[in-house]
């Protein structure tokens, strides 16, 4: 059985006050560990509920991370007019724009050999008399400016330059990625709200049932002259402790899940030789989770106990 312990609310001196609070705290906690006290179930329920948004967070964090490794940075190719012999001046000019990370200049020779490699027309292109390719500037955008608006703005301006014959970009790919990220963000929001709701509902439901099974005790203490605050205290501690232990469980569960996924994911991702490493739950985030769990436990208890104390007359 889940026990609730009442001890003195008010005694002389702060030390005694703290001592007493500590005693209630310890005993409320001790109740959770009693073998019969299947309150562990409640802790597990809260743990799982908290683990879900944590896992969700880690997943989006990792998608972010992955995105940084894959070609999420916008890239625009500027094909210069045939008579530009050296694009260094233009390159330097463009380089100063804040949205541009790096510019690679590809010479006509380099371009042709790339083309051969790309198209597989090694033999076919041998038939060409002269190299028909111009200088090309491959413009890499910074991560922050890798959005459709900035790229489109750049394209429009670049097209006006006299040195530029033609502008090519992978805006479609960028658009798609933006859409996916956008949808992902919305989904995370929806799930986060649902899960937050679930945590509150589960904790306050638990407290409700805990109070229900203590109706008799609460009534007796009221009759003896116990204030609402006195009655509430052990429930609050219990809610707090359950929330806190739930958070710890959540951290463990999340870590276990991530470790279970680490090997296959890095294995798969590693095939591209990218420097990507699976990101786990940081200490900061574990701290946030802990604060959230115990805070929610406290608040849900406070809310639930307040609502149900009134139901118990007189």
């Amino acid at each position, binding site marked *: 059985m889940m026990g609730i312990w009442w001890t*003195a609310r*008010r005694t002389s001196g702060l030390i005694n006050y703290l001592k007493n609070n500590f005693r209630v705290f310890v005993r409320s906690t001790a109740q959770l560990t009693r073998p019969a006290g299947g309150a562990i179930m409640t802790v597990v329920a809260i743990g799982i509920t908290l683990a879900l948004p944590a896992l969700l967070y880690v997943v989006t964090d990792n998608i972010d991370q992955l995105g940084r490794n894959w070609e999420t940075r916008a890239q625009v190719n500027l094909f210069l007019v045939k008579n530009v012999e050296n694009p260094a001046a233009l390159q330097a000019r463009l380089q100063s724009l804040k949205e541009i990370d790096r510019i690679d200049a590809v010479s006509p020779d380099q371009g042709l050999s790339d083309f051969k490699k790309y198209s597989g027309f090694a033999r076919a292109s041998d038939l060409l008399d002269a190299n028909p390719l111009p200088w090309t500037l491959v413009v890499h955008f910074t991560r922050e400016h890798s959005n459709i608006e900035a790229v489109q703005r750049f394209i429009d301006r670049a097209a006006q330059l006299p040195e530029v014959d033609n502008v090519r970009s992978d805006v479609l790919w960028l658009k798609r990625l933006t859409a996916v990220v956008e949808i992902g963000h919305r989904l995370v929001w929806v799930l986060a709200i649902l899960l937050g709701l679930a945590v509150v509902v589960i904790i306050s439901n638990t407290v409700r049932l805990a109070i229900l099974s203590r109706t008799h005790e609460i009534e007796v203490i009221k009759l*003896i002259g116990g204030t609402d605050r*006195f009655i509430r205290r052990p429930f609050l501690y219990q809610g707090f402790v359950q929330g806190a232990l739930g958070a710890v469980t959540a951290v463990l569960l999340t870590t276990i899940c991530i470790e279970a996924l680490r090997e296959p994911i890095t294995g798969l991702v590693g095939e591209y030789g990218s420097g990507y490493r699976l990101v786990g739950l940081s200490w900061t985030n574990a701290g946030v989770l802990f604060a959230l769990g115990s805070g929610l436990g406290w608040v849900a208890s406070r809310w639930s106990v307040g609502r149900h104390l009134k139901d118990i007359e007189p």
Partner: protein
Amino acid sequence: MIAFNDVTKRYPGGHEALKHVSFKLPAGEMAFLTGHSGAGKSTLLKLIVVIERATQGQVVVNEQNLTRLPRRKLPRFRRQIGVVFQDHKLLPEQTVFENVALPLVVSGYSPKDTPRRVRAALDKVGLLGKEAMFPLMLSGGEQQRVGIARAVVTRPSILLADEPTGNVDAAMSDDIMDLFRLFNQVGTTVLVATHELRHIERLGKPVLCLDDGYLVDRPADQWID
């Protein structure tokens, strides 16, 4: 001091458990409350502890008019009163010691003094040595006596007892009544609801007799055996 002034209590179902009851028990006095089963004895006591509120009329306890007492003042008010409940109302998951200590804890008495006081109260009802047991391990009479110990542990200014000897044998019953008289002698106002007319005769205290909700002068003939 307990004063009822034309008090009527009607329960939600419509049943009138008390009808135009008026009486006054001065501070430091002791009285018995008797009447047939369902006459309204427990209801009268419940009005004094504000477990129920009067439908009509005034209940005044220790200068406080209970009809106007706000909810948040109830705890402090109740700490002045020790009550032995008809159904004991012990906490099943706390030991006998913790049960008896509860009023001290609730009122914020010094924790240092608690063990001594609790043991003194348990000694009075003959339960020293059972401190560590849980209520469900006790016999009916023992549970009732734990309830008595809990009611007197804070030395309240008013002591109410609802059928405090229903589950104990004659000798123990006499001891308990003597204990109540002792409390009365040191200044506590005592009101005891009981069916055992024997005690009323033995102690020679005034009697409030209820008959179907009405306060009557003396026990009807049928209550005298």
